[in-house]
């Protein structure tokens, strides 16, 4: 694992993002340097409005940076692509397709040229089974709960066998119990698939429990990376055992200290 952590997979070099708004130019991100290794789980944490999602969209290729460069597997990120799958905050399932068809749309796009219809169906079934939703396959998103929708979103992303999984506050809209359950499932899936994950979150426990590396961002405007915390807890991790682990408590304290003492959220007039 240590050997693989030294290899650069995603490289972010001096990225700067400025938005044009009605009030003039708004510098959202400045001087972002970050490398992410293959198989690493990285959490982006910070107060709301600090540009976490902006950074994730840049990695996804949904937006292009004003300055600087982003590389994935030594190639410049020029636009979105199925090798960098995104799990959206609001699940973004197409409401007129069944859960199966929502996942199938992604599977067909990535593997349709090479594989038979039966193989594509198997892949879709496998992805739904991975998140435990086989029985809900023929239901429409409007007929299932919020947690299930988010799981379909994860299944859709995983079904593409992406090199990187990008998650934008995937569990933010869920209740605490569902969130904990999905976090455990995600830990298991990531352990099985060895995915590289970048996750935006504002939940300290979620960040410490899931990540190998916590990237803490300063408050905007012109937000940048304030500190990077390496979480060296052994895997597999269990939330019950970790709750009393001294290292876990220390990591948690470090993040809270950064967020609330050094970057205490100020309601800005801007």
């Amino acid at each position, binding site marked *: 694992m240590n050997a693989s952590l030294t290899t650069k997979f995603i490289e972010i070099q001096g990225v700067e993002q400025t938005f044009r708004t009605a009030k003039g130019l708004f510098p959202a991100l400045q001087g972002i340097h970050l490398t992410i290794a293959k198989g690493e789980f990285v959490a982006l944490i910070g107060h709301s409005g600090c540009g976490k999602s902006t950074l994730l969209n840049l990695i*996804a290729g*949904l937006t292009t940076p004003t300055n600087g460069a982003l590389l994935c597997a030594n190639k410049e990120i020029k*636009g*979105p*692509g*199925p090798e*960098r*799958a*995104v799990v*959206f905050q*609001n*699940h*973004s*399932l*197409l*409401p*007129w*397709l069944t859960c199966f068809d929502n996942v199938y*749309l*992604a599977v067909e*796009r*990535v593997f349709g040229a090479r594989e038979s219809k039966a193989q594509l169906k198997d892949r879709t079934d496998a992805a739904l089974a991975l998140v435990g939703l086989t029985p809900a396959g023929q239901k*429409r*998103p*409007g007929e299932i709960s919020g947690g299930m929708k988010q799981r379909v979103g994860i299944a859709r992303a995983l079904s*593409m066998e992406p090199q990187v999984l990008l998650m934008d506050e995937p569990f933010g809209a869920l209740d605490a119990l569902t969130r904990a359950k999905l976090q455990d499932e995600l830990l298991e899936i990531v352990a099985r698939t060895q995915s590289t994950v970048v996750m935006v979150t504002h939940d300290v426990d979620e960040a410490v429990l899931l990540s190998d590396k916590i990237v803490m961002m300063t408050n905007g405007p012109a937000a940048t990376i304030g500190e990077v915390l390496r979480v060296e807890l052994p895997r597999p991790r269990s939330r019950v055992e970790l709750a009393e682990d001294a290292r876990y408590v220390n990591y948690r304290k470090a993040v809270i200290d950064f967020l609330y003492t050094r970057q205490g959220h100020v309601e800005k007039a801007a």
Partner: protein
Amino acid sequence: MVSAVFHSPLEPTPATPPNAIKNIATGAVSTVEGAEKASKPASTPASVARDGSALSRAFWQNVLPPVLGLGLLVGLWALVSASTGRSIPTPYETWVQALEVFSDPFYRNGPNDQGVGWNVLASLQRVAVGFGLAALVGIPAGFAIGRFTFLSRMFNPLISLLRPVSPLAWLPIGLLVFKGANPAAIWTIFICSIWPMIINTATGVQRVPQDYMNVARVLNLSEWKIATKILFPAVLPYMLTGVRLAVGTAWLVIVAAEMLTGGVGIGFWVWDEWNNLNVKNIIIAIFVIGIVGLVLEYALIKLATAFTFEEVKS
């Protein structure tokens, strides 16, 4: 315009809620029974009384108001009829006449004397052809205008200029170009139904949630997949609203157009009966036009709700 009488197709539906209420009421009573066991005979009259009160409440809330509304209409009509010295026929006379008219709606005594059924069908056919052509042109045009800002800027001034023009103003142009009454009437329907379809389709395309387009970009979907799997289903509810408005306007306009062009059709029938001074038939025609419009509107609303899905909340 049709919405004023829209409540009437809903009348038959309230038959279910009272039943549901009744079931809940008896269910509640039976659990109480199970707990106490002794009060079995006493509970039956209570549930009957509750059934009765639920039924009468349903009657007061759902059946009575529309009946009263219709009664008011008929009452005012009788009053007007009496005060104008019967130059407007009474509701009863009209009813008798209507029974006669509808006893043989599909007779044919030459081109100018045909049953009311043929007249309605002729009007519906014109609306269908004119409206169908408008849909064929208007919906693709709406997609193009909604998708490309350039086209939207190019056509919006034209649409704003032409849309407020009464469709009947286009009738002479139609007569001139097509040299016939029937195509001219269809042309008028075409013109009046194309605007709501273009405008609503274009609005729908512009309002496709950015989330869906982001999904398309991340999956790198082809233009064809974007059109069939995302754009079309997302726009469908807007499009159907356009269709509904268009059909409503078309049905309004056809009556006026046929008054001017003649031939067979419900509008022509009204005008013909005016020339015959047969006011009873004119009133019957007004009801027929209203009811057909109501049915068209109701069918399209049902169609629209079947294709409307829950949106992603952002």
